[in-house]
């Protein structure tokens, strides 16, 4: 089955990004496809390459980048939300791309299930 995921919250503040990631890993482990993760609202803050969390904590941004690299997950950052929050190509982490809300609609039309994680 083909899944689309929406992430509405930034890393560390809320559990949303963690839950979304663990859902993606579990879906892939079961042989499903995670076709796209759409980062919306404060969720765009998952995409900054400037994060530097404590050594003994998970690195949420790198975890997403790795998921993109290893499983071809399309990580899309909402452009309007990103501009409001200071996420641009210059601080964008590997595996993410910035695009419009049409990519969210497409995630709804072209996947079998769309699951939202947020606050």
């Amino acid at each position: 089955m083909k899944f689309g995921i929406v992430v509405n919250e930034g890393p560390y503040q809320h559990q949303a990004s963690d839950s979304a990631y663990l859902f993606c890993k579990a879906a892939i482990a079961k042989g499903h496809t995670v076709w796209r993760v759409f980062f919306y609202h404060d969720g765009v803050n998952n995409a900054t390459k400037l994060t530097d969390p404590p050594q003994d904590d998970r690195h949420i941004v790198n975890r997403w980048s790795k998921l993109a690299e290893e499983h071809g997950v399309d990580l899309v950052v909402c452009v309007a939300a990103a501009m409001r929050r200071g996420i641009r190509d210059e601080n964008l982490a590997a595996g993410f791309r910035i695009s419009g809300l049409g990519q969210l609609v497409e995630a709804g039309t072209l996947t079998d299930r769309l699951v939202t994680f947020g606050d």
Partner: protein
Amino acid sequence: MLHIINKSALSNGSFESCLRTAESGEILLIEDAVYAATKGSALEAKVREAMGRFKINVLMPDLEARGLADRVIEGVSPVDYGGFVDLVAGNKNCQSWL
């Protein structure tokens, strides 16, 4: 239909809104919503009543993180992240009650 709840039902109205509105189907409690699945809380009677209409599931990694894995109300189904995926796949659609 799968209804995903992620907020503590003792401080936020999402769970109650879901119970009031949703027809039937399945409910999955995740994140801070997992507390609703525990015995002894003020919500227990409401949850037991809702089990007549819904199949209620709880995400165990979230309940373990909160130290309450041993207090799940009888009849609530424990699932892991794989079970979460199965619930989404097994229902025609899903809604996150954010």
